[in-house]
């Protein structure tokens, strides 16, 4: 007859064994807990949310009418463009670019105004040697910003000229208006007096229009609307703080997966499973003991990391601690299930580590850690939603930064997925423990 107490004792064998084996490796614990915290801290201290400065040389022909204005345009873009001078020698500029002395060469179009009058688009050509697709995209954006700036400057100057011309016309319109009034009076009772009055009214309207045009600044005429962004969220996060939940999740997932992945495969490689096959130990007792052991270890690491990010980095937790704990527990459970699955399909410890690293790499790219999920094609997002980290990152961001679990379904799916995997693990382990 089954004795439940003995089952607890048998599972307890693994709780004690696994915890002792890990705790006996202080360096491992230090790396697990302190390592990620220090990396995050360094990232927070060292990360500058600024675009890279690019030394830029402008190639402009000697007789180009905008030659004197290119540096002004460049400076208006801020620190991302460092004015590297103007030259008329394209080959020399390209040579410097190829040797890495400068970052960008801008070819300014010849006869820009003539071309505009000829109904053409004068083209600024930006030449660079970036290999990073992100930076290449950034150069494109920089080019658009530069042209926008040039266009704006040109439009402002046109508006200024127009205002000046209007002011020049104002006196003449005033005189014409006075003349029209005088004519209206002298024609008194004659039918033409009415026509003179209408002319005076028209000239008055024209004068008001000129006055209004002179009152508006040229930059307002060119760019009448501007935007202002207001965040109604309760927190304002730095980039490094925003990454806190993702880092905690990825670290705990990787730790749980690796520990679990090595656990059973090590028992099998070492031959201990043969001992368990002969003993009264069942696969469910063994698996349960290992779950409890690694939940305790993962929980301890999670607690220390939480304290470190909250008190060390000032990361907020706006939601309840219960929800926070539930998310971490579900993440650990699902990750352990995935790790045990790896352990049961691996033949060697090396294989188990490789599979764990693959899972980590997949999580880095597809869990929403690096790029938001919406940036991924729908069929790739299927991969994302197979990863425990995807659910946990979403959930932890909600709990920490929005103050509630707005998507509790994600928590149920995370825990439920872990449970399904746990059943698969149990069936596989039972099969491994059965007779050969």
């Amino acid at each position, binding site marked *: 007859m089954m*004795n439940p107490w003995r*089952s607890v004792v048998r599972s307890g064998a693994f709780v004690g*064994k696994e915890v*002792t084996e890990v705790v006996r490796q202080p360096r491992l614990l230090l790396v697990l807990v302190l390592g990620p915290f220090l990396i995050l801290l360094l990232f927070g201290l060292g990360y500058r949310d600024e675009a890279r400065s690019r030394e830029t040389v402008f190639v402009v022909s000697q007789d180009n009418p905008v030659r004197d204005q290119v540096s002004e345009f460049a400076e208006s873009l801020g620190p991302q463009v460092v004015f590297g001078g103007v030259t008329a020698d394209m080959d020399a500029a390209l040579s410097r670019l190829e040797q890495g002395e400068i970052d960008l060469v801008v070819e300014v179009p010849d006869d820009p105004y003539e071309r505009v009058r000829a109904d053409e688009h004068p083209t600024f050509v930006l030449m660079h040697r970036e290999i990073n697709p992100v930076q290449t995209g950034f150069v494109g954006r920089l080019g658009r910003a530069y042209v926008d700036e040039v266009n704006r400057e040109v439009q402002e100057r046109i508006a200024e000229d127009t205002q000046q011309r209007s002011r020049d016309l104002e006196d003449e319109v005033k005189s014409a208006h006075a003349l029209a009034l005088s004519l209206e009076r002298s024609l008194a009772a004659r039918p033409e007096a009415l026509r003179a009055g209408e002319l005076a009214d028209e000239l008055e309207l024209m004068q008001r229009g000129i006055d209004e045009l002179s009152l508006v600044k040229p930059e307002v005429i060119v760019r009448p609307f501007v935007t202002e962004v207001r965040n109604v969220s309760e927190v304002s996060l730095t980039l490094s703080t925003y990454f806190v939940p993702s880092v905690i999740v990825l670290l705990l997932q990787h730790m749980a997966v690796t520990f679990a992945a090595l656990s059973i495969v090590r028992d099998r490689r070492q031959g201990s499973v043969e001992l*368990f096959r*002969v003993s*009264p130990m069942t696969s469910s007792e063994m698996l349960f003991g290992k779950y409890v052991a690694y939940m305790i270890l993962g929980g301890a690491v999670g607690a220390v990391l939480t304290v470190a990010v909250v008190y060390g980095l000032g990361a907020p937790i706006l939601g309840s601690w219960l929800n926070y704990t539930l998310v971490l527990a579900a993440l650990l459970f699902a990750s352990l299930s995935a790790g045990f699955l790896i352990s049961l399909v691996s033949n060697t410890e090396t294989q188990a580590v490789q599979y764990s690293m693959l899972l980590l790499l997949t999580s880095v790219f597809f869990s929403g850690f690096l790029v938001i999920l919406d940036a991924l094609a729908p069929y790739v997002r299927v991969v994302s939603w197979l990863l425990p980290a995807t659910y946990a990152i979403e959930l932890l961001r909600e709990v920490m930064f929005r103050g509630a679990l707005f998507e509790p379904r994600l928590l149920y799916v995370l825990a439920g997925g872990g449970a399904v995997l746990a059943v698969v693990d149990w069936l596989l382990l039972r099969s491994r423990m059965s007779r*050969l």
Partner: protein
Amino acid sequence: MAAQANGPVIRAEHLTKRFDGETAVDDVSFEIPRGAIFGYIGPSGSGKTTTIRMLTGVYRATSGSVSVLGAEPGEFGRAVREQIGYMPQDFVLYPDLTVWENLQFSASVYGMGFRRSRRIHELLEFVELEEHRSKQAKNISGGMQRRLSLAASLLHRPELVFLDEPTAGIDPVLRRKFWDRFRELQAEGTTLFITTQYVGETVFCDLVGVMAEDGRLVALDTPDALRRRAFGGEMVVINLVEAVEPRLLRELRGMDFVTGRVRREGETGVHMVVDDAATAIPLVLEWGRASGLQIDSAEEYNPPFDDVFVELMNRSNGERSGGES
């Protein structure tokens, strides 16, 4: 279900195990009575470990039937498993745990309650590891690791213990101590199934199974009976004062009490196989007096089990090649 009190603890009938067509154990049958020490000897690769694995339920037999403690190994329930102790050939405990922690782990695996410290101390004394209990298993010698494995297999006071080469790699003094301990366990009522490559250890067993390299059980008997079977009877050695002449050997071969071979050993010695040494020795002395020989000594000779084993193997190979031809 426990085995019947008077029935055999283990019964194996025509047990065979093949791996990918290769026969590891070939049609082995034996019965082991309760409270016996069963020695299972044979060269490396002869199927000793495979047999143990079939008896403990690790392997499924390709054919044949097994009953251990009254149950078929594939159907072992918890109650039967709790009565079995198993020490595998390799060290399979945890190198990062201390001696004490490994024993705690093993005790938990067998569901032993928290009042287990006394028993662990007893076992540590038994295997002489008490003073090493705080050392990590990876930091103790191979011999100590084997003793630790032995202690782990005995913690839960099993009724039946399988020990797979427990004395391998252990110095002779300690080996002797191990066998003393096994005798103590036997006295407590434990049945022991022990494999060994040390043929000399057979003498400590009640029943011995001898395996050939091809996985056959070539002999199964008590140590004395095996010795007798190997040489065709008991052995008597006589030493003469003078050199042994060929004529004397021929005469001896014609005597009624001589049942096997007669062989000269050195200048003055003669080894002969007789039916019963106690009966034969006075007859030898009588024959010597009648023949005018001066016999310095005549006594029973127990050949070492290495010789017994070699003889049994030769006989087995001879019978086999004879059968094949």
